[in-house]
């Protein structure tokens, strides 16, 4: 077990910069998820920690040791690959034992570790099989087991669940969470799936175009997205983003005027983008309510998503499941200032006070 430090780690391929300088301190035993769309540099950053990509500038420390120029085998890391990367010609037992054999570990100790990992992951019946004879979920468990037997300082997982179907993905997600609790080793996990990030991480690092956008606990990035990109990327259904300008403490957008939270320290007339999550729009009569014209209904089961417009502005509203709303229905809605996110249109940066109580439900 160890902590991991990335000190302004940068990666360039010729003139093309893939990662612009990541600074991150992963605490001992922490589960950090790198999240972002394809090509954002999250996998490259992970591979730099693994030693599979050379670092252009910056340094990486694992357990207080500078590993920047070390080979992957000398970093005491274990990695789980997206396509499992199991050795097809070796049995599951041999796959699990291979890394230990290469390190000239005592045979009895190898056997003990393999048996213990296979028991932990329910692989006992498959030890003599070849990877081809296993299902996707079983193969992924072998890949996890191969990392587990090594007892590394840090686990690196590169989109480990993206080759699995939706149902299996949820099961394996739970298994990874359980594994982390049991072994307590630091884990770095790369994904483009925000649900995986939100459910697994102690902290999420969100990247875009090689730049770190925000680092924070899952609810922190949900509650206080640092910029427009994070606001749009985190949360499903996606946050409503309404463009307008500041006018006497409110956002003016077409025919719509929305009262903003206090502490917006920008000049009158400044172009702004207002963010409001579909689940944070209040539905019901109240003073100052706006009229929302429903155009499309999406039944999600426990909730109902209404897509429509208010005073010419397109909006998504998520409410508790209802059968009463139809296409063409009008609903009274309100925007609660405490649940609004205000961003500069020019820079995309968040401009409401960091301590706004967005997203927190009042205690019952």
């Amino acid at each position, binding site marked *: 077990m160890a902590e991991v430090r990335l000190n302004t780690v940068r990666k360039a391929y010729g003139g093309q910069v893939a990662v612009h300088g990541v600074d991150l301190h992963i605490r001992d035993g922490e589960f950090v998820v790198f999240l972002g769309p394809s090509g954002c540099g999250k996998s490259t950053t992970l591979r730099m920690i*693994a*030693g*599979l990509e050379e670092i252009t500038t910056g340094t990486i420390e694992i357990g207080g040791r500078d590993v920047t120029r070390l*080979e*992957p*085998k000398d970093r005491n*890391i*274990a*990695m789980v*690959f*997206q*396509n499992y*990367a*199991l*050795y*097809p*010609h070796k049995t599951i037992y041999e796959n699990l034992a*291979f*890394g230990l054999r*290469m*390190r000239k570990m005592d045979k009895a100790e190898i056997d003990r570790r393999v048996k213990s990992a296979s028991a932990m992951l329910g692989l006992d019946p498959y030890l003599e099989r*070849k990877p*081809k004879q296993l299902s996707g979920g079983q193969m992924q468990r072998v890949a996890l087991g*191969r990392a587990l037997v090594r007892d590394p300082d840090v686990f690196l997982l590169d989109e480990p669940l993206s080759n699995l179907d939706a149902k299996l993905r949820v099961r394996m997600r739970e298994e990874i969470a359980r594994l982390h609790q049991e072994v307590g080793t630091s884990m770095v996990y790369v994904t483009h799936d925000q649900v995986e990030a939100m459910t697994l991480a102690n902290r999420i690092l969100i990247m875009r175009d090689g730049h770190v956008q925000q680092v924070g606990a899952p609810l922190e990035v949900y509650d206080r997205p640092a910029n427009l990109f994070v606001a749009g990327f985190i949360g499903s259904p996606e946050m409503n983003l309404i463009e307008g300008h500041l006018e006497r403490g409110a956002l003016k957008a077409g025919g719509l005027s929305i009262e903003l939270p206090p502490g917006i320290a920008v000049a009158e007339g400044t172009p702004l983008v207002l963010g409001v999550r579909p689940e944070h729009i209040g539905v019901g009569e109240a003073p100052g309510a706006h009229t929302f014209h429903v155009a499309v209904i999406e039944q999600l089961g426990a909730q109902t998503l209404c897509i429509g417009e208010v005073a010419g502005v397109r909006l998504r509203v998520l409410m508790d499941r209802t059968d009463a709303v139809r296409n063409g229905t009008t609903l009274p809605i309100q925007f609660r200032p405490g649940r609004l996110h205000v961003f500069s249109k020019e820079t995309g940066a968040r401009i409401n006070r960091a301590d706004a109580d967005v997203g927190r439900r009042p205690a019952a």
Partner: protein
Amino acid sequence: MSSKATIYSFLILGLAVTALLIVAPVVYAVSLSFYQMDSFVGAPKWAGLDNYTRMLSQWVFWRALINGFIYSFGTIIFQVVLGIGFALVLNQVFPGRNIVRGLSILPYLLPTVVVVLTFKWMVDGSIGVLTTMMSAVGLPQVQWFESPGAAMASVILVSVWMWTPFVTTTFLAALQTVPSSLYEAAKVDGTNAVQRFFHITLPMLKPILTVIVLLRAVWMFNKFDVIWLLTQGGPVGATEHLAILSYRQAFGQFDIGGGAAVATISFAILSLVVFIYFRLFPLDTE
């Protein structure tokens, strides 16, 4: 037409072509081996197994058989080892890689007669570039086609030079199907480059290797043109293998039955080798 009729019509067509082009000549050749004939126009005389006993009792037959094995093993080992080596090099990233890959296939594209003539000129006793180079560094002149060992070495050398590109290209294609993540996983698992070759590359190439060795073995065992053009089986039979012997017997000695008997024995040996090979290295590795 019903689907069954379609299937049968394709099947019958395929069988007919096979029978016409493969089965009939084989049966005809085998049947020739039971007759005594000195030409294809004269009347054949039934000879039973005489041709076989006659050929098998001759030292030239056994020499040709041993030569065939030496030539096949020699060429296959060098072609496979060099082929894998070149494929590994060509699989690396370096400037101009595509041009080098293209050039590396060239020897395979040249007609055998061109390759053989080029080699003959290279080792020519007075003007050959190889001869000149060897004498420049003080090496003794080699009589390439006059001493038995050197003659065998030269037919192997030319064959290896000509057909290694085929092996290289096949292995290169196979190498590109090995997922890079396997190598990365092995790096994380603590392997060095040599261990990665033996634990990843070689096992991943095994199915292709199995087929290549078999194909090359069959082709080399039957290879006629290179040896005929270079040495005609000489000197004094040092490079004569069964294919050359069969030809010389049938068209040089006008003993068509004897030539056919040699060809039939060669066919039987090869079939046996292929059978044993598949038992030892089944293609389906699961």
